[in-house]
């Protein structure tokens, strides 16, 4: 058997070399390529207003609870919903009474804001997302809210539906994932901040 000492040279040597290569060169090269080729995505897909100030990210949901805005998924992030600095799911088990309370609370809020809407509520609109930052809801969950938004804004349902349609994406490559509506984009359109 070799001595422990003769094992130390390759052990330390490979550790140093691989740390430089994989912890230094590799992330730097990746950063270089992505910053050159996909700058907007690499910076977080940020959306800016006309003054250049950041008003959000296309990929990070925002909290909406005012009736004139489209609402997104429930968010279980800490200190406040949609805290983009501390992602978290609710981690409530399917059988946990606290889950039922959260769901019932959301149903109540939706019905209070739109008392005449008697349609069943799409499940993604009453449940919390895994990240707490889900930027999207299903087309069904968006459609459920059209009447309320139109009434709160005093505009036609067709205008709201058109804003939703423009922010709807179908499955990737026609197969992958689910059809979805970007909530922040819809609300920016409704506010006239995005064409």
């Amino acid at each position, binding site marked *: 058997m070799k001595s422990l000492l003769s094992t130390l040279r390759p052990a330390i040597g490979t550790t140093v070399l691989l740390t430089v290569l994989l912890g230094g060169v590799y992330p730097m090269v990746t950063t270089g390529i992505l910053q050159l*080729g996909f700058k907007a995505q690499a910076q977080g897909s940020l959306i800016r207003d006309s003054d250049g100030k*950041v008003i959000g990210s296309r990929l990070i949901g925002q909290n909406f609870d005012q009736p004139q805005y489209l609402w997104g998924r429930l968010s279980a992030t800490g200190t406040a919903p949609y805290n983009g600095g501390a992602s978290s799911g609710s981690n409530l088990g399917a059988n946990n009474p606290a889950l039922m309370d959260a769901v019932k609370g959301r149903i109540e809020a939706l019905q209070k804001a739109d008392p005449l809407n008697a349609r069943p509520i799409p499940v993604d609109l009453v449940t919390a997302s895994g990240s707490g930052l889900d*930027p999207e809801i299903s087309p069904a969950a968006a459609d459920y809210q059209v009447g309320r938004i139109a009434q709160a804004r005093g505009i036609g349902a067709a205008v709201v539906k058109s804003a939703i349609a423009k922010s709807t994406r179908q499955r990737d490559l026609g197969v992958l994932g689910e059809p979805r509506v970007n909530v922040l984009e819809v609300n920016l359109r409704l506010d006239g901040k995005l064409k």
Partner: protein
Amino acid sequence: MSQFITGNGWLQLALYMAVLLACVVPLGGYMARVFQGEKTFMSPVLGWLEKLTYTICGVDPDKDDMSWKDYAIATMVFSAIAFIVLYFILVFQNLLPFNPQKLPGLTPDLSFNTAASFVTNTNWQAYGGETTMSYFSQMVGLTVQNFISPAVGLAVLVALIRGLSRKESTGIGNFWVDMVRANIYVLLPLALIVAILLGSQGVVQTFDAYVTAHTLQGIDQTIAVGPAASQVAIKQLGTNGGGFFNVNSAHPLENPTPLANFIEVLSILLIPAALCYTFGVMVKDKRQGWSILAAMTIIFVPLLIFCVAMEQGGNPNFAALHIDQMASHLQPGGNMEGKETRFGITNSALWASATTAASNGSVNSMHDSYTPLGGMVPLLLMKFGEIIYGGVGSGLYGMLVMVILTVFIAGLMVGRTPEYLGKKIQSFEIKMASIAMLVPGILVLIGTAIAVMTKDGQAGIYNPGAHGFSEVLYAVTSAGNNNGSAFAGLSANTPFYNSLLGICMLFSRFWIIIPTLALAGALAAKKTVPESAGTLPTHNVLFIATLVGVIVIVTVLTYVPTLALGPVVEHFNMIKG
């Protein structure tokens, strides 16, 4: 159950399996050439780096053949240095650069847990990503481990394969050569490709500080960013699983689109599945590799389908409320708590199954919020010992241990000396295989018992009732099998859980590696006996069925009582209303 799997769901599952299996031959063949020291198309690009490494380290790749003991010592010393380096990076991250959020150093118990977690290829996350780790810790600490821990797994696997294919040899190869080649020729090129693909989809890669956005409803929102793409790529490919952000690949900046999700979930099983073919090439009998791949797939696919169906079935507690859980072309339906809209049910359950079949442990949905039986699938897949595809390297060497046990049991049944690939399987081999097989079970059952019987263990439980037991069981199962996924409601960042789970991870990793290398050494030293009429073929349907049977029976015998106390009780509680 109100509904089963949707048409699109079937299509997505079929597409996934088809693409995965289509990659087996090209990637598996490439890896065989790499580990046999042959020239590949990457040799002109990175060959100089490989040679330079050997020069600096004083290694001669042609001459320095190691005995199994030397190989094991090299593995242990290398891992120990990695552990120490990572521990101190984490403890002192406040003094190190690339820390724009001025995050403090980690506590000693959290650093111990995280270092154990990453060195053992587990990547259990007791820490919170964006709230805990500086960019330096993520890159130089965690990303480096994401490469070298699967490279160690690959090296041990290649040593075992050499043990099976060499005759009357004292050596099983050179650890440094195998480990360096795994990094330079396999993991690094794949990671770079995947990182760029993910970056194009919206995964962040920047050194800027976190962004503050002024939202439409007029509040300030912090948006955590960082060099995520480079780390996410290798944490998927290396069956690591430690997320850049707290919620791992559920985070939209870590996994922004269904296409990104497809690349990430494919990356989980890519190398482990392809290694079956590598094995076949290296033992000069490809049928042996195919039969193992078949056994893995036969166990994986039904569990995957069951998991998707359970989650698509939704939460029966919601039936009394005014909620629509039916899937349609306008909504995913099903149990959407803890799942992202863009992934829906199919991609969430697919990921949950793949990540626990392999020892990956990353998540794109919160397993804690799955239905009881849907959540039992990832739990069960981990309990198979991470050999259904399994970890990079570790999955197949774990599986080969089961193959040797199966050959032994089959030999007992027909009354002949068992042999595998011409090697007689004798008492020493069975002892080593038994240790490797028993260690995870012992860790999981005793660890869970300790946790549920002590105040400190009970204090971490979040959900009430049987599900609380499942949370603890899941955590110890995850650590004791080097997976790393969690029922994340459990408050695991406490001195108690950091220590318990850290110890489980270290024991499970190295008390499988050492017997496996001993097995490799013993096998390499043996003669090869020629195939005869009495030889039990290990590449036909009968053998595959026996292997599946042995794996299932061993797992069921070990774990059924715990599954009954957790998910099964919870399921009955739920349906009785």
